[in-house]
């Protein structure tokens, strides 16, 4: 076998040293390209081989560390639930300090496992893990990563610090809460809500960037599910110049049934954004704001069909009985949807509404009769 390689090597040596000058220039060029490719491929294969070996070694090492750390953390979890936080931290801290957590890979595994345990268990376990995380100064790298130029790394750091309730990063979060990058912005806003102890909704004051629809859903979920978050009056932000902030706050006003927002909601009836007007009318109906009826009637004829429908539905929800004549007149609209909404609204006025529909039934057109029958049908909700 070795003589075979030796023969090849000898042939190549002879080819490139003695015989090369006698070849025509195109053959010489081709031989150089072949040589270049051969050397290139050999280097590439060597690189791949070394890299894979290194990765394999690293994986094995990480697995060993992972097992070790899992055992230590599992012990912390088991005892952490019974002893008090300080005792358990003082007991396990020296053991964890002996680990080479200055090594990035070990730190990564430790933090990953701490976060996983923190998310899986309730009780004092979370407090114990947080205390250990801080005492081991594991937050240092994450805090540094907050300034990383890649937003994925920044988000990872925000998530880590939020889960470990590291509250001294709120200023940074406030800055990112209006970042150009939508993902980073949303992550920072959600984290700010969870971490800020004084004014968790402060980021709304300075939000110039859009809060996208699904961001709003995420924030809504965070706001309504985070324990001990102080809910302010969201009417404060209904005058925001950022329409998406107004939309989010409208959802929250509706969820928390904030009646103090009625004056601002009435003001929103003249908002240039159609969606905001519709949302405001819906909420006014939902919270049965009788004081808004006059304004709704005043804008009715200047509004497109979508808004008119909402106004008619809202009048039905408020059901004050003050505007039956108006509703009666709308049952003669050209638009089918308006007639339907007006009839439904009359029906929503209880017995009086039902009687009115029965009275007008005989005078109505065939289609209106069908609508009245439909809205009076008890089986249809």
């Amino acid at each position: 076998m070795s003589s075979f390689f030796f023969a090849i090597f000898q042939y190549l040596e002879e080819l490139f040293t003695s015989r090369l000058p006698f070849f025509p220039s195109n053959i010489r060029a081709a031989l150089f390209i072949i040589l270049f490719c051969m050397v290139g491929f050999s280097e590439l294969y060597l690189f791949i081989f070394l890299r894979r070996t290194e990765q394999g070694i690293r994986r094995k090492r990480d697995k060993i560390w992972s097992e070790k750390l899992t055992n230590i953390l599992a012990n912390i979890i088991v005892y952490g639930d019974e002893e008090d936080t300080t005792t358990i931290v003082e007991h396990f801290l020296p053991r964890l300090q002996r680990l080479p957590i200055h090594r990035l890979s070990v730190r990564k595994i430790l933090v990953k496992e701490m976060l996983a345990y923190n998310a899986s268990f309730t009780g004092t376990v979370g407090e114990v893990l947080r205390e250990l995380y801080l005492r081991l100064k594991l937050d240092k790298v994450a805090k540094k990563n907050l300034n990383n130029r890649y937003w994925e790394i920044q988000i990872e750091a925000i998530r880590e610090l939020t889960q470990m309730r590291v509250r001294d990063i709120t200023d940074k979060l406030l800055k990112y809460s209006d970042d150009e990058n939508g993902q980073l912005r949303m992550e920072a806003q959600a984290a700010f809500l969870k971490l800020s102890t004084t004014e968790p909704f402060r980021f709304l004051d300075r939000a110039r960037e859009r809060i996208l629809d699904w961001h709003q859903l995420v924030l809504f979920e965070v706001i309504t599910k985070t324990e001990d978050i102080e809910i302010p009056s969201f009417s404060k932000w209904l005058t925001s110049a950022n329409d998406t902030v107004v939309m989010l706050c409208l959802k929250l006003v509706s969820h928390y049934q904030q009646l103090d927002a009625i004056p601002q909601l009435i003001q929103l009836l003249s908002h240039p954004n159609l969606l905001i007007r519709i949302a405001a009318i819906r909420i006014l109906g939902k919270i049965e704001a009788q004081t808004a009826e006059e304004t709704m009637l005043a804008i009715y004829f200047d509004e497109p069909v979508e808004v008119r429908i909402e106004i008619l539905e809202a009048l039905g929800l408020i059901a004050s009985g003050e505007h039956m004549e108006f509703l009666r007149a709308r049952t003669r609209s050209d638009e089918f949807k308006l007639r339907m909404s007006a009839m439904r609204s009359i029906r929503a006025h209880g017995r009086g509404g039902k009687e009115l529909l029965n009275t007008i039934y005989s005078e109505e057109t065939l289609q209106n009769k069908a609508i009245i029958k439909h809205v009076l049908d008890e089986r249809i909700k």
Partner: protein
Amino acid sequence: MVKVLIVEDEELLLKALEFRLKKDGYEVYTAKDGLEGMELIKSQTFDLIITDIMMPYIGGLELVSNVKTNKETKDIPVIILSAIGLEKTVLEAFRLGADDFISKPFNLSELSIRVRKNIKQIL
């Protein structure tokens, strides 16, 4: 000694549960997925099974169904571990015969009490 089987694919959680129940004095067996769990159930008898719902190969629901429809294993209490938001799946597990459930994240002391309670009922 009371024998408990834990079927859970999250290694960290599995380890913590194992440590805790061993500390409580049980003989603990572990399986990393439903298939491994089913094999253990076939090969020996257990006094209690704790199982996750979402697992590879055989899920928690299938495992409950297999245990509860088998004459030899139907009396073994099964505790389901489920994430919040899987209420419908939990109801399905109860319909299949599961005896108790704990939603994640949970308190280990609570789990310990539930295990004790369920074992007491059969002893």
